[in-house]
């Protein structure tokens, strides 16, 4: 039993009020912005002949339609390229991996202006039909608002993580009409831990987002199905198999995007023209397969309908969507990986269900559970959020049977994918940027702490020509057990240990006593490497030298490194167990 005094209670109540208000405010702002984002994309889609309902109005005028089909993504690509080149500092679209990075490393991330420019580029990308997703940019939109809110000074610990998680939760809650999924997504993908302190405001934000989207604006659901239930017990084996196959599909998809990104980087094509090339390829393919254009929500809704697609059509569409999404995202269109894999997965599931129906005499419960299992089993490894995907199905369909079927598929999918390729596409992106979350939060975080932060200049500097006697005297006067030897220009030479000097006569120079290859850090060494190195070397001091000219910059003591490491662990613990 904890006892509180009056002031404590006041502070606690104040904090609860602030966090609840913060959650609601972020939830409301993010949901309105997210809805505007979605509406803007839909408006562009309608007016630029991307959406099927707009295309059908012009189906008589084939030439006009075909020209528009190629021209719109091409010019859209050019506009996106120019925005990225001239208005975004890091010259690429921002997404969930950046949100994860900001929260995990507690860094400020890119500027609000860059974030908004990236969001604009995403609206243009999706609006002009790029084969990409909307959830990634929406998550980043939530992050921008969260990061702005985090600048308010409420004297609350972990405010940045709380605000960003709330923003992300609201964005997903609005986008899917699924508040619980939004709440869980923020924890599974962004925060990577559960604490009451973050849980409460995040839940409030997700709920507000849901109210705004569903009650006030009545947004249509991503997909709706009427499903009677799984009729045969053995079908769960099929769901598991679909899970395994979907994992492989997801891996192909992720590798595709990364490969295309590598390919374009190896060319000399300037950044501003890269998305345009993707636009041309997309437009040309879309003349034959218009379903590849845009987010693909109409195609997604057709996928659960029996025989809306021929099996051959499904196969072609799955391949085309993987290839074109890889090209679009790899070449720099700004968009997420989430919506395309939802579509690819649901088409794949529908294909599996269709094959079962057409080529076997095995009884089954129709195409719906297979399509939905495929969708979530392929998506879960990409976004690294198995619980979220199961919850999305549960919240959208309110169908318990379907949620259980999806759970089986998702579990098997994640087992396979985690082994082969890691937790999520976002983690791979972060890994490529040098931030490896697969090692655990503590290790990932210490990668971002540099040893230079712990460096100091209180040490004994020696020169190679000094005599053993004088050095012994210097060491005896100080409390050091070793001296750092540099030459005249300050370049590091080695270390001299006091014990080593006993083997030499007092009047000879210390040159022979110098240990030339001790543990040395550079200004680039991070805390994690330092901890590892101190484990293997039995030294209590490490000189820090410049990585370019090996000039001595200072020294780091082992106990400082260990103290800092423990402090980081302590801080993470505290964050993970923080209450209101």
């Amino acid at each position, binding site marked *: 039993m904890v006892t509180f005094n009056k002031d404590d209670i006041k502070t606690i109540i104040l904090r609860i009020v602030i966090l609840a208000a913060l959650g609601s405010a972020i939830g409301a702002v993010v949901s309105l912005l997210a809805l505007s984002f979605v509406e803007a994309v839909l408006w562009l889609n309608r007016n630029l002949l991307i959406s*099927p*309902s707009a*295309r*059908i*109005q012009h*189906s*008589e005028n084939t030439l006009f339609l075909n020209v528009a089909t190629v021209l719109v993504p091409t010019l859209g690509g050019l506009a996106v390229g120019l925005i990225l080149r001239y208005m975004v500092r890091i010259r690429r679209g921002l997404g969930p991996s950046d949100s994860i990075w900001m929260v995990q490393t507690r860094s400020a991330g890119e500027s609000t202006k860059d974030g908004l420019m990236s969001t604009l580029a995403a609206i243009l990308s999706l609006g002009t039909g790029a084969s990409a997703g909307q959830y990634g940019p929406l998550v980043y939109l939530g992050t921008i608002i969260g990061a702005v809110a985090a600048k308010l000074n409420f004297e609350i610990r972990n405010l940045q993580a709380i605000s960003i998680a709330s923003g992300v939760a609201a964005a997903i809650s609005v986008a899917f009409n699924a508040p619980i999924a939004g709440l869980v997504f923020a924890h599974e993908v962004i925060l990577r831990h559960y604490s009451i302190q973050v849980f409460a405001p995040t839940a409030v934000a997700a709920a507000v987002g849901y109210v705004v989207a569903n009650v006030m604006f009545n947004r*249509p*659901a991503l997909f*709706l*199905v*009427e499903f009677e239930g799984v009729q045969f017990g053995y079908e769960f084996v099929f769901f598991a198999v679909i899970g395994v196959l979907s994992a492989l599909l997801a891996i192909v998809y992720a590798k595709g995007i990364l490969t295309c990104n590598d390919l374009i980087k190896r060319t000399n094509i300037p950044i501003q023209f890269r998305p345009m090339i993707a636009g041309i390829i997309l437009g040309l393919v879309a003349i034959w397969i*218009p379903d590849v254009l845009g987010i693909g929500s*109409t*195609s997604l*809704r*057709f996928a659960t*309908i*029996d025989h*809306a*697609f021929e099996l051959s059509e499904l196969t072609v569409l799955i391949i085309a969507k993987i290839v074109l999404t890889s090209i679009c995202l790899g070449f720099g269109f700004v968009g997420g990986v989430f919506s395309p894999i939802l579509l690819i997965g649901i088409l794949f599931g529908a294909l599996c269900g269709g094959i079962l129906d057409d080529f076997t005499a095995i009884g089954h419960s129709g195409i719906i559970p297979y399509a939905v299992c495929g969708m979530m089993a392929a998506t879960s490894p990409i976004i690294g959020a198995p619980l979220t995907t199961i919850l999305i199905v549960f919240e959208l369909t309110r169908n318990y049977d379907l949620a259980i079927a999806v759970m089986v598929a998702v579990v098997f999918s994640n087992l396979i994918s985690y082994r082969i390729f890691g937790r999520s596409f976002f983690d791979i992106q972060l890994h490529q940027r040098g931030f490896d979350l697969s090692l655990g939060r503590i290790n990932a975080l210490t990668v971002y702490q540099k040893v230079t932060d712990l460096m100091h200049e209180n040490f004994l500097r020696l020169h190679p020509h000094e005599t053993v006697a004088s050095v012994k005297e210097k060491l005896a006067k100080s409390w050091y057990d070793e001296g750092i030897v540099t030459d005249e220009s300050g370049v590091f030479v080695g270390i001299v240990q006091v014990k080593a000097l006993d083997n030499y006569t007092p009047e000879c120079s210390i040159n022979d006593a110098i240990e030339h290859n001790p543990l040395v850090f550079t200004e680039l060494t991070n805390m994690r490497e330092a901890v590892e190195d101190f484990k293997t070397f039995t030294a209590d001091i490490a000189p820090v030298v410049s990585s370019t000219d090996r000039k001595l910059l200072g020294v780091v003591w082992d106990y400082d490194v260990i103290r800092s490491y423990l402090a980081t662990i302590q801080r993470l613990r505290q964050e993970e167990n923080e209450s209101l």
Partner: protein
Amino acid sequence: MNLYRTFVAVIALWGSGFAVAQEGQTLTITSWGGAYERAQLSALIEPFRKETGIDVKLRQYVGGIEPLQRRDQKNNPEFDVVDLVESDAHFACDEKILINFESSMLDPAADGTPAEEDFMEDAWLDCGIAHIEYATVVAYDERAFMEEKPSSIADFFDIERFPGKRALQRHPRAVLEWAMLSYGIPPQQIYELLSSERGLNLVTRRMNQIRDHIVWWESGSEPAQLLGDGTVVMASGYNGRFFEATMNHDAAISVIQDGQLLEFGVWGILRDSPNQEAAKKFLRYVTGTQKMADFSNRIPYSPTRSSSIRRIGLHEKSNVSMLTYMPRSTSSTSKNVIRIASEWYSRTEKVRERWFNEWLLDGEN
């Protein structure tokens, strides 16, 4: 009691005086004919004539806005007051054919509830007031299916289980929604998916299944006749017409309680009508709580004002409770009720026509 009688007498006197003042004036009003017209005449028009002395002429109208734009020799429109389907009402409003509508043009309910609160929220259009909600449904001939009865919209397209001719309106309407529904597509997604090539292809596939079994109808009174004389075994049509055939003509017709398509019937006044005052008086009269209930007690189109719904009782001839036959009736087992998206209809006019004509042509080749 005496007081009440005096009150009635005063009202009657006042009414007759009024009648003299308005003598000689004639309003021309659209009518959908048949059972609908009979209900209109006895519930609304005759009492109106008696009370106001304004003569009302009913003229046949089969929908569309072209008839509303026609002029007589004096360059006046042919109608004063029109009873339109919702999609036509929107279109006519956009074309500035109808006067703008205000809630003050209608009377409050008997208990004083203002009209704004008494009418359904959706009933208020910019240029009119929705007065009834009717349903387009599929009905079948009981005699044709002595054993298993059709029970879902999918059965309408299932020639093997339920063989026989189907009567359909020769117009790309209703059957589009039903074809989509037959695939198990949830009602909320039907219009979005219909707005695509793939959606229309799905409809085509369903229509092809029944291609050789279709009898087309054009006027609303035909489906019940076609069912009655055994020409077809199933037919699309308006719920009130099927009700009338069953109750008044003992037809063996049952309605499938799946896939009701709801739409409003809307009163509007033509902008160029020279009889604005009389037209407004008429509209105020026929939208009164009791009048709307009287109409719905004759034909099961549900009134859009809640005070009228509370006054619905038994059908005058057959003594059945009218509420059970109303569209979207809670007592029936209706599922997959769809509200017709009138805005979608006006937007896709060309596309639907083209698709329909192509489909018809395909059959001829």
